[in-house]
């Protein structure tokens, strides 16, 4: 219990600015993606173990709530990927970049690139959602 409080207050109280935000976003997006991945492996395996349940799962995924979650998930996947690439590149090939100024600059680049990839994808997914669930755009 003590270690839980110490770790959580450290996560939230440490004012490391961009470096700390990138650490927190990486963890949250990774845990969110991992949670979905676990569910997704199991629901996909229904195609063999219980085909009718697979169609139930797909119906759930087609709901509006799941559709909004899907848009968030895609941001998590893009952000975690770009930030992971940044971490892997620094760690494996260019450790001299692990400095505070470079951390600050590359955090904003990472966020900007993620948004640039996410916005068009989110627009298409929301378009499909409104079309299929609300009959907009001639759906």
């Amino acid at each position, binding site marked *: 219990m003590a270690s839980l409080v110490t770790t959580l207050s450290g996560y939230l109280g440490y004012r490391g600015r961009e470096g700390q935000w990138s650490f927190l976003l990486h963890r949250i997006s990774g845990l969110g993606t991992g949670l979905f991945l676990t569910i997704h492996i*199991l629901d996909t395996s229904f195609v063999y173990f219980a085909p009718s349940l697979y169609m139930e799962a797909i119906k759930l995924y087609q709901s509006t709530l799941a559709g909004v979650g899907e848009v968030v998930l895609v941001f998590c996947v893009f952000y975690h990927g770009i930030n992971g690439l940044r971490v892997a590149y620094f760690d494996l090939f260019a450790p001299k970049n692990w400095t505070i100024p470079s951390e600050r600059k590359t955090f904003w680049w990472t966020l900007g690139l993620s948004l640039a990839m996410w916005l068009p994808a989110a627009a298409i997914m929301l378009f499909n959602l409104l079309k299929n669930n609300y009959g907009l755009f001639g759906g």
Partner: protein
Amino acid sequence: MAANKVREAKTPNNYEKFAWKWMRYSALLLIPLVWGHVILQDVVVGVHNMNLGYVAERWASLFWRGFDALLLAFAFAHGINGVRQVLNDFIHSDQGRRILFIALFIFWLAVSLIGLIALLAGVGQQFPLK
């Protein structure tokens, strides 16, 4: 501001070093695999066009079955080790970490096996698919 000095240190070749490398090298492979999968399935095809027939058609291709097998192998192991790293921040005792390691290993093995069986066996429905 003075530039940070990067210190080089020798680290032992143990499991933690292997896991550290695994996270980074699997990440390089996961970029095309996961982004390709997400862009194709969520954005281009879309969840409203999915059903058993779609999966059967997709898995009729050996390429896509291999693609999904790589996703299952690399993405899930990457994710489980990530969960282990996060929980190691909260669990500090050697015994607690050992229990966590074993529990996550069993969980990883069970879910991976379920996924692998479905991937090898394919869609369990009589043709023609509805």
